């Protein structure tokens, strides 16, 4: 499925100023609760799962992007939301660089293939220097969605 279809642009946070990466994850999950994607109770469980996952190994895959994620029983479809931190912040990324785009990916526990497909699509953007720069240059939900639509081959 196309990435832009999985996005919740109402929950994108384009002016994040997180204390640390766990705070960033909590803020992104809270924004999904605020957008009525799931309940506060589910949001708390999801934030815990994502943070737990992050403690095992950083999802800062390099080039200024992190993909914190969880496969969780608390969602029944793939959900994607973005956070942007101007200037970047420490995410313990594999390349040691600061992270300025956080892409939170939630997939249903049973959907291993959907998870791999979404992850692959995001990674394909990040590993393309030109597209990655464009992604990092997005400053509004509209610009994120516009870029994803273009990369998904959708005319807006």
């Amino acid at each position: 499925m196309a990435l832009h279809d999985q996005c919740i642009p109402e929950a994108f946070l384009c002016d994040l100023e997180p204390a640390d990466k766990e705070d960033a994850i909590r803020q992104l999950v809270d924004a999904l609760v605020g957008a009525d994607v799931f309940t506060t109770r589910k949001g708390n469980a999801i934030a815990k799962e994502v943070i737990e996952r992050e403690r095992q190994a950083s999802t800062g895959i390099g080039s200024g992007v992190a993909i914190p994620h969880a496969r969780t029983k608390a969602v029944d479809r793939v959900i994607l939301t973005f956070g942007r931190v101007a200037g970047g912040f420490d995410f313990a990324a594999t390349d040691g660089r600061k992270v300025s785009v956080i892409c939170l990916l939630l997939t249903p526990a049973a959907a291993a293939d959907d998870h791999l497909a979404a992850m692959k699509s995001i990674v394909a953007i990040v590993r393309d220097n030109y597209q990655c720069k464009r992604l990092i240059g997005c400053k509004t939900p509209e610009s994120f969605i516009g870029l994803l639509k273009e990369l998904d081959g959708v005319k807006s």
Partner: protein
Amino acid sequence: MSTIEGSPPDSSPGNPPGSASVVEVRVTVRNKNGLHARPSSVLAEAALRFADTALTLRRAETEVDAKSIMELLLLEAGPGTELTLTASGPQATEAVAALRNLFEREFDLHL
């Protein structure tokens, strides 16, 4: 695309010890969630130990560097996916053995 032969390592008999060789085997993703982020990082970390040996994984037309987590994620290799692991360099045999072992042990994650 060339047809891939079965598993036995295929270093040419004439190679003197320590010289470059190419070894190619098939591996199968056995863990139930496929080659997601953590297995990819385990694999890339193991591959990086063989600094002088090039290691690639191929699925159909997609061939990626086994030393890069990002590239491994591009394979989108779900459970049961068969991949071709190719090593080229002085430690090709050891590298293939180490990586194949990780696939068989489900990357030691058991998740």
